[in-house]
């Protein structure tokens, strides 16, 4: 009951906030929402299926390029947005068949290699604009309504994030979700109890890619420009930081982690671009935030912020009862 109220409150806040934000804050809001979508998928993948992915930004890139390429070649923009998660998931399913035979650090390096290969191919591909990228992506239009204002994208992002959370929530609660949780604890035991381990792992991988692909599609229409340089390895690492900081395997943790990291990086970016600061200050500060947050959380809050906070109130309450 309290959770429902909290959710309704947060939803209302997410809907009420965008009109109050200025131009730059609105951009941060949209990027935060998109990062949260990717992080929800990654958190599901790492927390429930126990897989480390260091290449999550490649699915984001595939979504962005799918939407961008279709739109640039004159396809309806809505089709591009719908195709983005489908193509990303299809790519993940195809790549996942060989890759998901690997575990642990092998998979981590394999997904990293996947992203490096993708970036290499994209920056050589003339049909994708090469290293310069795709320019002149039109605005998204939904049923004749063209989204030309940032405000429209803010609401689109909120809707897409809500959809992502809803899908993820239902999967966690389903029979398949319980199978996944069993899989993360012990693959052997899960397989022995009849969980189709290989198929489930692949399905979560594809689903996390679909979330990232959808976010990438929105990103392409929002900025109107994508290039291989928009999707560095550091972006993938950033998603990992968000998922770990918020708490792996919790949906609210993914959103909290994405919000905390994005806002902190933005704040330090503002500090770093103040007059008098050296030109390298913003990048140094953002690298430092990623790394210090990640190391501190892994060492001292291994389950992440949200699970740690969730454990906190009962203890405080019980202390209150005794007094």
């Amino acid at each position, binding site marked *: 009951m309290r959770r429902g109220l909290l959710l309704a409150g947060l939803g209302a806040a997410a809907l009420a906030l965008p009109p109050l934000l200025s131009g730059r804050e609105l951009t941060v809001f949209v990027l935060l929402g998109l990062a949260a979508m990717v992080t929800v998928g990654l958190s599901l993948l790492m927390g429930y299926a126990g897989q480390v992915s*260091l290449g999550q930004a490649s699915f984001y890139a595939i979504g962005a390029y799918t939407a961008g390429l279709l739109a640039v070649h004159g396809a309806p923009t809505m089709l591009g947005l719908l195709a983005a998660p489908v193509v990303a998931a299809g790519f993940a399913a195809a790549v996942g068949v*060989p890759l998901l*035979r690997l575990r642990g650090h*092998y998979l*981590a390096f394999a997904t990293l290699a996947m992203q490096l290969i993708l970036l290499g191919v994209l920056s050589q591909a003339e049909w994708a604009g090469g290293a310069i990228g795709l320019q002149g992506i039109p605005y998204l239009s939904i049923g004749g309504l063209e989204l030309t204002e940032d405000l429209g994208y803010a609401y689109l992002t909120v809707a897409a994030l809500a959809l992502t959370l809803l899908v993820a929530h239902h999967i966690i609660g389903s029979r398949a979700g319980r199978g996944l949780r069993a899989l993360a604890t012990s693959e052997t035991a899960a397989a022995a109890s009849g969980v189709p381990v290989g198929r489930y792992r692949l399905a979560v991988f594809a689903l996390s890619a679909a979330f990232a692909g959808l976010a990438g599609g929105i990103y392409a229409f929002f900025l109107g420009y994508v290039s291989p340089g928009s999707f560095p390895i550091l972006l993938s690492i950033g998603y990992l930081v968000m998922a770990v900081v918020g708490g792996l395997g919790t949906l609210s943790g993914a959103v909290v982690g994405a919000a905390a990291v994005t806002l902190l990086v933005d704040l330090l970016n503002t500090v770093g671009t103040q007059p008098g600061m050296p030109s*390298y200050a913003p990048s*140094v500060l953002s690298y*430092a935030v990623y790394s210090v947050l990640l190391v501190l959380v892994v060492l001292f809050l291994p389950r992440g912020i949200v699970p740690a906070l969730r454990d906190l109130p009962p203890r405080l309450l019980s202390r209150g009862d005794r007094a």
Partner: protein
Amino acid sequence: MSDLLQYVLTGLGVGCAYALVGSGLVAIYRVTRVVNFAQGGLAVLGAMSASTLLAAGLPHGVAELLAVGLAAGAGLLVGLVAIGKPGTSPRSSLVITLGLAVFGYAVAVLLWGDQPRSFPGLPGAVSLAGARVQAHYLLVVAVTVPVFAGLALFFSRTYLGKGLSACASNPYAARIVGINVTRMGLLAFTIGGALGGLAGVLVTPVQQVTFDSDVALVVNGFAAAVLGGLERPGLALAGGLLLGVGQTVVAGYGGAAYQIEVALVLMLAVMIWRSARRPLVEEPAV
């Protein structure tokens, strides 16, 4: 024909650097089961410090040795953070070293800026059977071979090296006979740091280094190490040389744009092939 020979010789030089990074990964992984993602960053640190020390007027040799020492120290620090806290699982340690690699970016940009750096190595070129090769590549090979020989002797003949190997083969039994496994892990991180720093110092005169060169270095090093299943430094040497030669030959015959992809596809193929033959041991759930 002399073209091919030139590519192969150059490739051996490049491959030695990958092999050094890879053997650092192996040295750490055998003892601690942690893949040190910051290994590439340590190479960059070694390279950058060498360039600063040389610019400060230190003679060649001294500056490079000091830089390798610095990288070893940094390796020890990485180890302290990654495995110093009791009960850190290897998966957490991997994520921590990833964080430290990003921290390395901050340090490198702060100290050395974001422009590529280099310093002069062994000047001149040598003709071998009609192929002209920069002399520095031969120096790289000439340094790497004794280092690997020394590593092999260290692991098999010295008391400390045998202790490391004991931790690698059975940490529990090693603890029972009185070996401090954590201290051995830190020693492994130090050795790994020195090997990474050496790779950076050796390769910089022929390939410029920027603060984010570490991803390419650590991925290539991992690719080299994977050939030996992350357990055997000798196979990491073979893997590194194979990768280096493969890349330069592909680049030489017109595929320069696809150099790194060749290494990555090869690494993926080897990993998947190995996992199909012999299921990779499942990490113990913690």
